[in-house]
């Protein structure tokens, strides 16, 4: 295993120390239970936006804590949902008297732990479950779609709604609008290695790729022969477009995400292809985000996320944000 770590069991705790030192102006880290909190929390009268999930997806979620986005993030062990006490601590520390929105990616573990926390919470909380991954069939025969790349626009937009003073109901309604309009799909060329496992999460031959991959090293929907960039981008985009469906004239946010080890050189190349495919269909790319935001340790691969925008969502996306990973407008 090739990693810059000391001990698999202390990776997250040690990493949080570095995060705190690196971004002391934006955030404070509570170490036990682990919670990353906005430096100026609680913000009086503002709905708190709280998220969390396993570690190993950085900058999500800790790098998204700050004005205009998250009030707190709860980092679990690597690829493991956080525990309820992390979430209840986050709720307490960010309680500005207007309640909290819990942003939960749809995984059994995340849902159960946040649900437990919500039951224990003494503040008013609402939960939004994001399940944007079209690779997974949403049926009674699965745990439902996973939450993946769509989490970033969800957190950005709900963060902006809370910042402008929306109440909990309004923020929740906007969250539901985002979830209803966002779809993603990912693929991998090579697997990540979880520190305590010590070997890659799956084995791919040099001429294979995994399509419909999740962000936890869990295998994808299908293993197929590796393709070139045109093939890969089309294969990710088609099922996304069909699913909502997206139609001619729609305005969208296109989020081209690196899973970690895929370099920006390749990511921009893929982004260009996606833009052209969308233009061919008359879909208007009104906003874009390109980079490694929802990663899976050093997994090589990418995902595409499309969010259908209306005027309000667009305005909320454009609103100022100041976090370690996303920053504009101030």
């Amino acid at each position, binding site marked *: 295993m090739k990693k810059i770590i000391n001990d698999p*069991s202390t990776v997250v705790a040690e990493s949080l120390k570095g995060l705190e030192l690196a971004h002391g102006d934006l955030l404070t880290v509570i170490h036990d*239970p682990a919670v990353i909190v906005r430096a100026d929390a609680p913000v009086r009268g503002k709905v708190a936006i709280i998220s969390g999930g*396993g570690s190993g997806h950085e900058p999500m979620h800790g790098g998204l804590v700050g004005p205009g986005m998250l009030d707190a993030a709860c980092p*679990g*062990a*690597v*690829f*493991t*949902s*956080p*525990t*309820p*006490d992390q979430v209840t601590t986050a709720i307490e520390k960010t309680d500005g008297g207007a309640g909290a929105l819990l942003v939960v990616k749809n*995984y*059994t*573990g995340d849902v*159960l*732990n946040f*649900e*437990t926390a919500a039951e224990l919470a003494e503040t008013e909380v609402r939960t939004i479950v994001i399940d944007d991954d079209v*690779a*997974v*069939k949403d049926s*009674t*025969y*699965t*745990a439902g779609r*996973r939450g993946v790349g769509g989490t970033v626009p969800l957190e950005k937009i709900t963060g902006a709604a809370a910042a402008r003073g929306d109440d909990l109901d309004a923020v929740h309604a906007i969250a539901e609008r985002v979830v209803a309009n966002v779809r993603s799909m990912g693929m991998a060329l090579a697997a990540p290695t*979880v520190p*305590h*496992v010590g070997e890659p*999460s*799956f084995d791919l031959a040099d001429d294979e790729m995994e399509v419909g991959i*999740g962000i*936890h*090293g*869990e*295998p994808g*929907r299908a293993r197929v022969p590796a393709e070139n960039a045109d093939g890969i981008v089309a294969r990710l985009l088609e099922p996304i477009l069909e699913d909502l469906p997206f139609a001619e004239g729609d305005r969208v946010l296109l989020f081209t995400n690196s899973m970690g080890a895929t370099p920006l050189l390749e990511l921009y190349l893929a982004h260009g292809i996606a833009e052209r495919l969308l233009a061919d269909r008359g879909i208007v790319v009104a906003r874009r985000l390109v980079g490694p935001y929802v990663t899976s340790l050093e997994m090589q691969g990418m995902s595409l996320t499309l969010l259908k925008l209306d005027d309000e969502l667009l305005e909320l996306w454009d609103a100022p944000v100041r976090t370690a990973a996303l920053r504009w407008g101030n």
Partner: protein
Amino acid sequence: MGCTANDLVTALKAAAATIEEHRVELIQLDRVIGDGDHGENMDRGFKAVLTALDANTPDTPAAVLKLVATTLISKVGGAAGPLYGTAFLRASTAVKDRAELEPADLTEALTAALGGIVARGKAEPGDKTMVDALDPAVRAAKGDTATELLAAAAAAAETGADATVPLVARKGRASYLGERSAGHMDPGARSTALLLRAFAEVAAR
């Protein structure tokens, strides 16, 4: 001569030892159809249980079970944390204020535990989850002594865990794999079988 708080502590220590011993096996099972953390999470959780039991000495079975529940909930994370946590919490409630647990109490505790898991996770038998180990175990949990009862439960859980191999997962992370989840044992079913076997062995001493 029922099962006291102390007996329970002994059983939990044995369980923690078993989980530590099978940590890598559980990681590997979860790596294939999940995300590879089940062994690590369970081991972290049961190590925390040992620490908690060292620091506190709850004097009723219910208190022991509750301490286990809260510890697992706050240390395990993932799907297994709240599921096992709820299981122990419901078991704790089920045994009320009894000082010693008789076989009938054990059956009730196991039944309550299963109920808790199903209430939280909504899995049915055949979904390829820990329910496929615990459900047959509860049905098999009969006997005049704790030894007999737990031996039967453990055996049934093992058979149930083995029987998850051909199943296609419909709950939890393995469900994302669809048909590709068939051919591998469910890690949570395996850990349930391991826990029950550890309890049964302590009871047999």
